[in-house]
């Protein structure tokens, strides 16, 4: 029953506080009376007896306070009192409270946005049921930067047969092609589709929203005329009409019956194309399976080629690591059965890697998010220091209040607690306001299209976990700031000191000054770090904008055309079609020049590298392929405005006669013909193969011209180290469908050309699909929006930091000067020159700021290394960024110091001294 007694006791202390306090007073009063009587018995006079009794008793109020502390849920009771007190304080000093609330709101808002991102992507993606058991399988080789590739169907088949740890495995292959809905729109669309094994749905554990998914039977040849739609496509193409089930669509001319619709957030984890590429989002799924692989996927030569994403659902209890080891063992067992392929794979250090789907989600964006998190930690620190200094400033105004309360028996701890509660309350209110900022910020972020950068578009919303997080960090920050502001109170100084200090000296104590100066140092240091980061990114982005790609980007329209395989063009037919197209494109009204190319600039991701071999060189040299090649029309160079440096460009006759000629760019000329005239020399581009042998056939091309090198697949760098060799399009040879890329320079608005060009293509070939039409400016925007978003986010952080920092610095200086008004007034009364005093104030703060700047510089040097990967042609030690940040911040400090100094000097001496 003891716990019950205790509970009752505490309960009473909480709700019968008045009564209990009365009891205690009464008890003490009786005690004193009894002691008085006892003293009187000893022979003292009544007055002396009472005084002696009181003396013996000590501070009655302090004893009461300490006794109360012993009583049960005192903290709760105090808490209530602190709250009331805090609310009263807030009402009294609105300006002060507003500044603190806004500070917390900004900082917590920024942090909440990032947390929302993390939460939806990493902590709680909830894509698939029991997603810890869902893993992705990668093949890695030592010869590539992007070291994680998909697996071949052959490896997949071996694993399905031999793995013990996987409950089930699945594979998905991305295919492009035409999609044609007869009856809705006869013009085909060029879209991506996923060929998947029926097991994929079981591995991911996702059921369709409507209809059904594939059966294992449907993976077999002849049964595969079915399709399952992704939700987005169903919505946009069919307006979410459920009667679409049973209808037929055509992929590259093959009829497929629609049997199911996947739910809205269903995604198949794929290779990441992020912003670098055009829209690779697949729109539908079609079945595929053993015995029904596409021809290229089942060829034994392609055993170690990256064909598709491979997934598995592990048996309960099996770990990704163990599964990875099992797969390695399978590789070692089955590999040697195909010695030639195996030797090649070994030479490239083939490994199989297994990661859980969760680990995979943030893969590409992790550095970005970590950097953001880093910046936000700094801004949080600045905010805390800032609030500390503001509270401290007010603390000195309230010093008398505290001293009096100490004298009246309040424990130091009680005062600290009250101060902390006050700041905490402001912080929490700020945190709630921060949620509003977070909601607005998330919407703004959504509009920048950041979600495209992620495999799973983050669900950016203020939900319970985000709200909980915001409250948690604002609470923690509030408590931290409150505690550090209460530090001076905690130091063991006698009451007398507190009360008499500024009466005696008329100025702040040395310790207080040092404490404040160190706050300024921290604030300045943290802000320097963030500012340097922001300016580095700004400088880097400016560099990107300044890049000369080597061609005109204005008034340029680029697009692809896709000819399905089933149109049955042979090489000659294709050449005729392209020539026709090329000729008629020039005559479309509004076209200045139009060219054919395989690689319209910046449109795709990386361009495949090829071997470039000049006559006379040892082509068995085992260097990896480093050049690139493009198949173009004569007008291509006109359309892009690529200057000819030597020789000539292609002419119509080169196409018609399939002349073996090539135009090289200046980089090829420098690399392969360093000290000679390349014109007239021979160069060969063997069919892309990993290893060249003496049997590899070489078709020699005669070099007729040299042009300026251009940046085709990335503004930031050239496609390859080896340069580009242009051939005429008459050399394209077809496997599968045909891509034809076009670059069209308009006389005015390039976007207006799309309609007539589309019509022209429809006229030439009704089954040809137009893919990815974009003006060059749109392409650039799409490609570099990631850098831009990264920059904007970091700049916002830096600006907020500067803002908070300057408010904090000014607040602290104003307060510091306020504590010195008496000193200043006395010195002025004694004849000190205003200018001297002003200089004194400025010099003092500048000293502190200089230390802060120096510390911040060191910090920035330390941390900017982590930015290096995000920087383009800007070193992490870029002088301009550092100098600029320092100038900006010095100016802020100077302005704040000057303002507070002026304020101090503008006060009336007599008025100040009389106080």
């Amino acid at each position, binding site marked *: 029953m003891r716990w019950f*007694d205790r509970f009752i006791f505490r309960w009473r202390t909480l709700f019968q506080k008045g009564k209990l306090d009365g009891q205690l007073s009464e008890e003490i009063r009786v005690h004193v009376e009894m002691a008085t009587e006892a003293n009187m018995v000893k022979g003292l006079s009544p007055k002396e007896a009472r005084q002696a009794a009181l003396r013996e008793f000590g501070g009655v109020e*302090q004893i009461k306070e300490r*006794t109360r502390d012993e009583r049960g849920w005192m903290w709760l009771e105090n808490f209530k009192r602190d709250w009331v007190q805090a609310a009263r304080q807030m009402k009294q000093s609105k300006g002060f409270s507003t500044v603190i609330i806004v500070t917390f709101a900004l900082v917590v808002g920024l942090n909440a946005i990032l947390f929302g991102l993390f939460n939806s992507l990493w902590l709680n993606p909830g894509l698939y049921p029991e997603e810890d058991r869902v893993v992705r399988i990668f093949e890695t080789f030592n010869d590539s930067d992007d070291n994680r590739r998909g697996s071949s169907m052959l490896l997949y088949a071996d694993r399905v047969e031999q793995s013990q740890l996987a409950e089930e495995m699945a594979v998905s292959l991305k295919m492009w092609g035409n999609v044609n809905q007869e009856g809705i729109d006869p013009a085909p669309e060029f879209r991506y589709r996923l060929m998947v094994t029926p097991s994929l749905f079981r591995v991911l554990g996702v059921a369709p929203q409507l209809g059904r998914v594939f059966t294992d039977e449907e993976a077999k040849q002849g049964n595969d005329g079915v399709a399952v739609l992704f939700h987005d496509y169903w919505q946009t193409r069919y307006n979410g009409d459920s009667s679409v089930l049973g209808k037929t669509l055509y992929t590259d001319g093959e009829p497929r019956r629609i049997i199911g619709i996947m739910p809205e957030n269903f995604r198949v984890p794929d290779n990441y194309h992020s912003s670098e590429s055009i829209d690779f989002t697949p729109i539908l799924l079609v079945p595929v399976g053993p015995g029904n692989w596409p021809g290229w996927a089942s060829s034994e030569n392609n055993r170690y080629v990256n064909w598709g994403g491979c997934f598995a659902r592990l048996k309960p209890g099996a770990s990704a690591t163990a599964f990875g080891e099992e797969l390695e063992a399978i590789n070692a067992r089955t590999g040697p059965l195909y010695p030639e392929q195996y030797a090649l794979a070994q030479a490239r250090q083939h490994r199989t890697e297994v990661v859980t789907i969760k680990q995979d989600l943030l893969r590409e964006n992790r550095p970005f998010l970590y950097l953001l998190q880093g910046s936000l930690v700094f801004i949080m620190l600045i905010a805390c220091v800032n609030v500390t200094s503001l509270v401290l400033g007010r603390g000195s105004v309230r010093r008398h209040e505290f001293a009096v309360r100490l004298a009246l028996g309040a424990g130091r701890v009680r005062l600290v607690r009250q101060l902390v509660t006050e700041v905490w309350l402001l912080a929490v209110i700020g945190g709630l306001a921060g949620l509003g900022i977070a909601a607005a910020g998330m919407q703004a972020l959504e509009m920048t299209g950041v979600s495209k950068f992620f495999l799973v578009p983050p669900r950016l919303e203020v939900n319970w976990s985000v709200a909980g997080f915001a409250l948690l960090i604002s609470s923690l920050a509030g408590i931290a700031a409150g505690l550090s502001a209460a530090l001076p109170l905690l130091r063991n100084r006698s009451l007398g000191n507190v009360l008499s200090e500024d009466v005696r000296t008329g100025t702040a104590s040395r310790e207080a000054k040092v404490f404040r100066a160190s706050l300024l140092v921290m604030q300045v240091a943290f802000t320097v770090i963030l500012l340097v980061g922001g300016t580095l990114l700004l400088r880097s982005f400016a560099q990107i904008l300044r890049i000369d790609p080597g061609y005109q980007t204005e008034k340029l329209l680029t697009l692809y055309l896709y000819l399905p395989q089933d149109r049955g063009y042979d090489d000659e037919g294709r050449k005729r079609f392209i020539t026709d197209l090329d000729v008629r494109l020039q005559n479309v009204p509004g076209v200045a020049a139009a060219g054919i190319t395989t690689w319209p600039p910046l449109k795709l991701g990386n361009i495949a590298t090829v071997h470039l071999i000049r006559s006379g060189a040892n082509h068995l040299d085992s260097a990896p392929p480093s050049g690139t090649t493009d198949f173009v029309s004569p007008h291509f160079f006109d359309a892009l405005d690529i200057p000819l440096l030597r020789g000539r460009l292609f002419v119509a006759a080169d196409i018609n006669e399939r002349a073996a000629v090539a135009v090289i760019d200046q980089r090829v000329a420098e690399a392969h013909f360093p000290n000679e005239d390349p014109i007239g020399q021979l160069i060969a581009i063997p069919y892309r193969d990993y290893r060249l042998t003496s049997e590899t056939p070489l078709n020699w091309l005669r070099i007729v011209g040299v042009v300026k090198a251009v940046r085709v697949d990335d503004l930031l760098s050239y496609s390859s180290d080896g340069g580009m060799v242009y051939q005429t399009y008459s050399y394209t040879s077809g496997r599968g469908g045909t891509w034809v890329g076009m670059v069209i320079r308009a006389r005015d608005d390039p976007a207006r050309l799309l309609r007539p060009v589309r019509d022209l293509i429809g006229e030439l070939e009704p089954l040809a699909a137009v893919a990815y039409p974009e003006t060059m400016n749109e392409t650039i925007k799409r490609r570099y929006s990631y850098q831009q978003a990264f920059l904007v986010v970091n700049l916002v952080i830096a600006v907020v930091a500067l803002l908070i920092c300057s408010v904090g610095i000014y607040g602290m200086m104003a307060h510091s000067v306020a504590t010195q008004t008496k000193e200043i007034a006395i010195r002025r009364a004694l004849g000190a020159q205003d200018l001297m005093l002003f200089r004194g104030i400025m010099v003092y703060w500048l000293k502190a700021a200089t230390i802060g700047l120096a510390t911040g510089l060191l910090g920035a040097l330390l941390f900017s290394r982590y930015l290096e990967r995000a920087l383009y042609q800007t070193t992490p030690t870029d002088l301009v960024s550092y100098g600029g940040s320092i100038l900006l911040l010095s100016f802020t400090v100077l302005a704040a110091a000057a303002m507070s100094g002026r304020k101090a000097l503008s006060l009336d001496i007599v008025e100040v001294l009389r106080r």
Partner: protein
Amino acid sequence: MTKEKAGLLQGTLDMLILKALQLEPMHGFGLSQRLKQMSAEVFQVEMGSLYPALCRLEKQGLIRGEWGVSESNRRARYYKMTAAGRQQLDKEKTQWKLLSNTINAMLQAT
């Protein structure tokens, strides 16, 4: 939270209060006199420690305070030991004995 400044070993005041209350219920003043007397005027119990200690003990359910009438016909708050208090005292006595024996032995060891 506030530190005891009594010249007593930390924690011993609670034990001594329980000991003093073992015979009869007592009020605060009586208790302070009794403690002084028990220690032959060696210990000066500070009031700043006594009342918080009483409150602590009451919270722990070891003693219970009740209003009664004193010998001088005053309403005073009397503290009575509870059964739990008695047990606690026994326990603390044993522990104390063990502790003091050990420390004595250690001090006498050469």
